[in-house]
């Protein structure tokens, strides 16, 4: 289960809208499993169909999270006109090939993936982790 304080959820949705027509992305930092901070980041692809963390910004954000003793609770991004479900591209990019076993392993084990969909009139947010290469949905509660 992923708990999002209302204010942080609102920040993510605002970031998604602000990013239109492109996909928006960012990091949710957590402490003891609870979201404490949203990092609104730049989509270096500047595209409505793909996103990528800006490399330099990624390092800065990850370093800051580490310095503050927080965790990489989740990565979030928006789907501008499709459902809030991991696309095959989402899935592929979340994994690496284990050099020894050859199997797909999560590149960021423990980090969830939140997707905000702007396809409908109201934004929809859903959360996932990956197990065995497949998305497993987790409940997202906004409180």
């Amino acid at each position: 289960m992923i708990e999002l304080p209302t204010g942080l959820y609102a920040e993510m949705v605002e970031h998604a809208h602000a990013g239109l027509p492109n996909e928006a992305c960012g990091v949710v930092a957590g402490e003891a499993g609870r979201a404490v901070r949203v990092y609104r980041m730049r989509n270096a692809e500047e595209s409505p169909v793909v996103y990528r963390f800006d490399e330099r910004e990624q390092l800065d954000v990850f370093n800051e999270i580490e310095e503050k003793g927080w965790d990489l609770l989740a990565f979030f991004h928006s789907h501008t006109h499709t459902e809030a479900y991991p696309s095959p591209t989402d899935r592929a990019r979340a994994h690496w090939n284990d050099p020894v076993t050859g199997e797909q392993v999560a590149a960021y084990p423990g980090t969830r993936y939140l997707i905000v969909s702007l396809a409908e009139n109201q934004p929809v947010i859903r959360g996932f982790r990956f197990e065995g290469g497949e998305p497993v949905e987790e409940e997202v509660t906004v409180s």
Partner: protein
Amino acid sequence: MVQVKIPTIMRRHTGGEAVLTGEGSTVRDVLQKLEERFPGLTKNVVTDDGDLHRFVNVYVNDEDVRYLGALETEVKDGDVLSILPAVAGGSVDPFVA
């Protein structure tokens, strides 16, 4: 001697170590020597063709090596290398028919 920060997903190859000490004159050099010490460590960083993997970021002192000399970027004593898997995705998928 340089410091190399290893991301979580790669620590299985370093016995859990998050920071390694490395040696070499270029990023490629450092990675190659690390690969010799920890086989498999850099398979997802340097491709079989010897290029930087498309979805991996390597930094020297907080600069992305793609903006420097890529794998040929020179390193000197005291430099800090960081390796991070890229974070990316998309929403448009190919249709087969």
